[in-house]
């Protein structure tokens, strides 16, 4: 906790398909309550088509490490997909782990907001696959760059995406 305000810094992990500015109204309301707030910018959103969950995990940990490095306590808020890389990113950045190595500050609590709370070893895909129907508004495009890398196609199929999303080959 910040020794002056006793308020943790809030780090927000966005949903899939969601840019940091989507959270601006929420952030301004929190700021009005004297919270410091930082939003992670996920590599997988609007950037590289081949970004992985681990890329997002690292983008989040870059933010939490920086805030913790300022001796701040952190509540990590994770929205929907953000719960998977968010949960992963906390490893090594908890307050308890940092204090064990003589450091101050770190992640003190997790707040999941309607999240795919994945079990150990589970992905969002395998979590959804157990309980949900097929959302037909999601279009999975496999671009030409991907089709030249067969193992990626294979991995998509192995993830059981066919049961979750409609997998469409995109000629462009």
């Amino acid at each position, binding site marked *: 906790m910040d020794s002056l305000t*006793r308020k943790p810094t809030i780090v927000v992990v966005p949903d899939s*398909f969601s840019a940091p500015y989507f959270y601006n109204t929420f952030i301004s*309301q929190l700021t009005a309550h004297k919270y410091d707030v930082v939003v992670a910018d996920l590599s*997988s959103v609007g950037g590289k088509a081949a970004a992985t969950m681990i890329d997002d995990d690292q983008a989040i940990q870059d933010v939490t490490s920086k805030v913790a490095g300022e001796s701040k306590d952190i509540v990590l808020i994770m929205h929907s997909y953000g719960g998977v890389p968010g949960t992963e990113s906390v490893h090594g950045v908890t307050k308890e782990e940092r204090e064990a190595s003589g450091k101050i500050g770190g992640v003190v609590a997790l707040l*999941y907001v*309607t999240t795919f709370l994945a079990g150990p070893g589970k992905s969002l895909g395998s979590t959804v696959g157990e309980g949900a129907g097929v959302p037909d508004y999601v279009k*999975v495009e496999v671009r030409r760059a991907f089709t030249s890398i067969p193992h990626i196609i294979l991995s998509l199929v192995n993830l059981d995406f066919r049961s979750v999303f409609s997998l469409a080959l995109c000629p462009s």
Partner: protein
Amino acid sequence: MTLEAEGNSKVTFSDLPVSKAVAWVGKMPHHSTLTFGGELNHPTYLDIPSFYLIAKNDRIIRPEMQRSLVDAASELRESPIMEYDIPIGHFPFISQPGMVVEVVRKVASEIL
């Protein structure tokens, strides 16, 4: 992945007026498909205080599924994950930001 606007607006922003919902989905960037296959290696919710806001009106992750996921995670912990049930849709940060702010304030007071 990309999202088809009309279908997406009805679920992601089900608690916004249609015109606003459509405007927001039009802003949603593409998302890397590979991320949905990334497996959780460090279930850190087992180690530190954890809270879950159940969005009771969510049409993407139904509240029943949210509860079953929380229950499953809670069974692995020494104490259950604390739940807050709120009548909001999938994107409350836009549709009902004040309700999420109140939950954040409750969480902050719980961990003092």
